[in-house]
């Protein structure tokens, strides 16, 4: 069964002249690792916020169409109910952490829901371990790096044990190495815990390899949805302004010149290197 399903979703922010998302119909199956990308302003951030009800409850405005997340209709349920099923991690690490110690931050959601202290302790420790920050749990959020802060944000969402974790450009402020570490954590949660992941990113060179369900948006609409290998080989995608990974571009250039590369479009440097080693043996 689909864990997220939307039908003709259209939303306009109050006071805006045109809708931010138009007629969006997507289906996400349980356990998938979905990647959403597109040029700035394409609506991907707005779409993320429909998954836990921030749109329309927090932002007001009218949301047309249907949306079901973890079997719940977000239009008729509070965001705090959705929070138990969908966790949202935002772009700016600093503005998601409000407590004076990391473990108190990770416990925040559980405290809000009224979980008992023993159970809370268990879940917090588990989340801290899953994200590799158990050792720094007593530090204050201001003392740690951006990469660590984002891991705290992920842990605090993970502690609620949601079925889905949505991450809106979580590595924008991080250097490539810290970004890679974050993606590894997310990938591990997806593979080992079976958590459905929805990642919004520009940096396809770092993330395309994790997904088999790519959604490309432009001007509020879903332009392409499906196999990333197909979509990223498509000239139209590149012309839309999506940053195709260099390895993929090189592959296309070489194939055009007649090099005997397999038909499987590579999404990472490892894949391309393997293909080249074969072709040039």
């Amino acid at each position, binding site marked *: 069964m689909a864990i997220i399903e939307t039908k003709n979703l259209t939303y306009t922010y109050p006071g805006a002249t045109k809708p931010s998302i138009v007629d969006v119909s997507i289906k996400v199956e349980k356990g998938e690792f979905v990647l959403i990308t597109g040029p*700035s302003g394409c609506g991907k951030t707005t779409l993320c916020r429909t998954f836990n009800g921030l749109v329309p409850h927090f932002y007001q405005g009218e949301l047309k169409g249907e949306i079901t997340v973890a079997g719940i209709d977000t239009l008729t349920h509070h965001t705090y109910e959705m929070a138990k099923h969908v966790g949202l991690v935002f772009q700016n690490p600093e503005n998601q952490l409000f407590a004076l110690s990391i473990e108190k931050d990770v416990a925040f959601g559980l405290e809000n829901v009224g979980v008992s202290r023993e159970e809370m302790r268990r879940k917090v420790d588990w989340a801290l371990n899953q994200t590799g920050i158990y050792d720094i749990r007593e530090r204050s959020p201001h003392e740690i790096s951006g990469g660590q802060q984002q891991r705290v944000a992920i842990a605090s969402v993970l502690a609620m044990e949601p079925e889905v974790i949505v991450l809106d450009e979580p590595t*924008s*402020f991080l250097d490539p190495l810290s970004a890679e570490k974050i993606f590894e954590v997310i990938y591990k949660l997806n593979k080992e815990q079976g958590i459905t992941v929805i990642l919004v990113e520009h940096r396809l060179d770092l993330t395309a390899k994790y997904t088999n369900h790519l959604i490309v948006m432009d001007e509020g609409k879903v332009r392409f949805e499906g196999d990333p290998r197909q979509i990223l080989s498509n000239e139209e995608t590149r012309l839309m*302004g999506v940053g195709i990974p260099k390895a993929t571009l090189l592959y296309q250039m070489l194939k055009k010149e007649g090099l005997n590369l397999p038909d499987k479009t590579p999404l990472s440097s490892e894949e391309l290197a393997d293909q080249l080693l074969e072709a040039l043996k």
Partner: protein
Amino acid sequence: MIEAKDIRYSYPNKVEALKGVSIKIEDGEFLAIMGQNGAGKSTLVKHFNGLLKPSQGKVLIDGVETTKSSVASLARNVGFVFQNPDHQLFSETVEEEIAFALKNFGFKPEVIEDRVTWALNLLSLTQYRKTSPFLLSGGERKRVALASVLAWDPSTLILDEPTIGQDHEQKERLRQFILQMQTQKKTVVTVTHDVEFVAECNPRVLLMKDGKIVADGEGKEILTNPALLELSSIVLPQIAQVFTKLESLGFPKDVIDIYEAKQIILKAKERQL
């Protein structure tokens, strides 16, 4: 010319951010300063317009020590675009925002009018002349901040992490823009950790770690040196990653340009046949 002679700098909280840095930047150069967070990159560039003065050593802009000038007078020639445009924007219209620095520097009203029009044009913001900067999108606000610095035509431009949060199209426009600045013989210094962006521009690269310079040279060489990259926690550009794995085929390792990569591979195939 910007010159730093063995400078040391410690923040008020006693942390020593620069531990003996020396560098010379000629007019018209394009330099990318890279390194981990906390390596001292931003601290270093803040010495170039006098925002920070060294605890030891000297910083000379066109031969004059920065300790002898105010930030305002140094800023006249060294324009600094900060990472977050929202830290600068405060005016009611984009026009006023761009005119702000011009007024501070004492430009005449007619000149201000011309400069504002020129800057708006350069960054495709003409239609927003009378718009409030707060109503613009993130990318547009970044352009307004850039326009407000370009307006007074400084000979040196410092860009602090200009690619953060930008999509592919915006980064491409930025790259074109820097090339344009270079044709106008402007010195461009950018602080960044965006390896792919630097790989595409291939400028002179300065690598920093723990307050010291660990490498200074051609982007191509530095960005493909695994020992250096490991030292400063930087990732290899994707093309270089591919070529690192093709070492067994006798390929060079210092390839970061996609067209060069294509040529090398095709030639190798030709030689096989």
